[in-house]
């Protein structure tokens, strides 16, 4: 068996008596795109936090390319090749778009700033202050900060939120591209089911801090529990 790109074992996080994450385990193969869905407050963002070393103390182990990184700081994890984007836009408001993407690139082996700017359609905004671009554009900038420098594993928290339909389609295609051409592994949280179903190799469903189901898109779509707790009736 090849080494896993990323593995979380028994990840747990509590806020007071409430378990936002309760012994969740997750195994990502290299080059895989894994969809992560679940109701609001299921613990998806918390799971990403646990994987990348954000927030309070977490129980469990994170293994990255065969190496236990549980004790590493967030910046060390990023330098090892584990990057993430944020659900709540997290950018450098006073810096130019290009400036900040280039800054993020400096930390990694390859500088693909321009490639990323072009791919995300940000080139025209490259010399604008990040504070002065629209919300959707800021969302894409946040994504660019994660993509640049060719990390080997990407944790993307609702990258399509706030994007117009066309942009979402471009994004979905881009993710597919990335996975196949760079062999990037992606853990993708999304509430936009079109994107999820279009790109995910497998899907994990979280509910109340635990894994509810895991499987291919067909299996997930057909799982009545998932439909009841999350998908609802309107997904065709």
């Amino acid at each position, binding site marked *: 068996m090849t080494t896993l790109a990323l593995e979380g074992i028994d990840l747990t996080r509590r*806020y007071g008596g409430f378990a936002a994450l309760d012994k969740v385990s997750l195994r990502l193969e290299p080059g895989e795109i894994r969809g992560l869905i*679940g*109701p*609001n*407050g*299921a613990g*998806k*963002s*918390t799971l990403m936090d646990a994987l990348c070393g954000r927030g309070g103390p977490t129980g469990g182990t994170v293994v990255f390319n065969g190496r236990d990184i549980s004790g590493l700081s967030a910046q060390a994890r990023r330098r090892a090749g584990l990057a993430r984007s944020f*659900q*709540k*836009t997290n950018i450098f408001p006073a810096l130019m778009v290009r400036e900040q993407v280039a800054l993020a690139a400096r930390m990694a082996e390859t500088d693909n700033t321009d490639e990323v700017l072009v791919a995300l359609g940000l080139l025209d905004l490259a010399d604008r202050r990040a504070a*002065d*671009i*629209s*919300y*959707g*554009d800021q969302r*894409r900038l946040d994504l660019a900060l994660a993509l640049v420098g060719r990390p080997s594993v990407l944790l993307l*928290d*609702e990258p399509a*939120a*706030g*994007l*117009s*339909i*066309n*942009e*979402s389609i471009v994004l979905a295609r881009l993710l597919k591209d990335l996975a196949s051409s760079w062999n990037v592994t992606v853990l993708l949280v999304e*509430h*936009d*089911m079109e994107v999820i179903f279009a790109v995910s190799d497998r899907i994990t469903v979280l509910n109340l801090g635990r894994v509810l189901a895991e499987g291919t898109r067909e299996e997930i779509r057909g799982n009545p529990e998932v439909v009841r*707790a*999350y*998908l*609802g*009736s*309107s*997904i065709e």
Partner: protein
Amino acid sequence: MTLLRLQSVDGYYGGARILHGVSLEVGAGERVAILGRNGVGKTTVVNACLGIARVRAGQIAFQGQAQAPIRHFTAARAGIAVVPQGRRIVPGLTVRENLALGAAVGRSGKWNFESVCDLFPILRERADTPGTAMSGGQQQMLAIGRALMANPALLILDEPSEGLAPVIVDELAATLVRLAGEDTSILLIEQNFSLVHRVAQRYYVLSKGAVVDQGTVEGMSMADLKKHVAV
């Protein structure tokens, strides 16, 4: 009566002109959508109504009353509540307090803490946790709940479906339609066509800060709408 009317509005951030002669209106009990790609100026329309973006030409009227100058609280006092893009939950306040803040204008109506919590039960469950400690989607519910607390005559929602699970979006759609039936007009800015299709009666399409198209949703299929609007 029209609740909100923009007449040839030019909107600016500092010296940058963003809106070019935008005109649109929302009547009583109407459900209207604004569509458009990222960065065309949808949020700027809202911000112009809130006095965040500056109006240098044209006119904005609430409930038939022309407004100048527009202060940040003008819209709220004219019965217009906004669910802002990015949620803007006030840090340091609990869920309950964030909701109470929404009732600052003191209009009475069917929405109060209890009824909002019936719509989004999680808010009751977590009433005393800090608002910003909630998950992204829960915060979105809180933002919507807070706007409802004002019992507005017009509810403006800037991409409310963002971050919400599909089941919740379903409920939201139903709620919005119901609201309009109860005399609250809706101005919906959305990328989620399924929501627009279910909620809106009319739509405006914005491109590069100008209204380039408008029409009625009723009678169109979802596919038609997508094709027609072609954003």
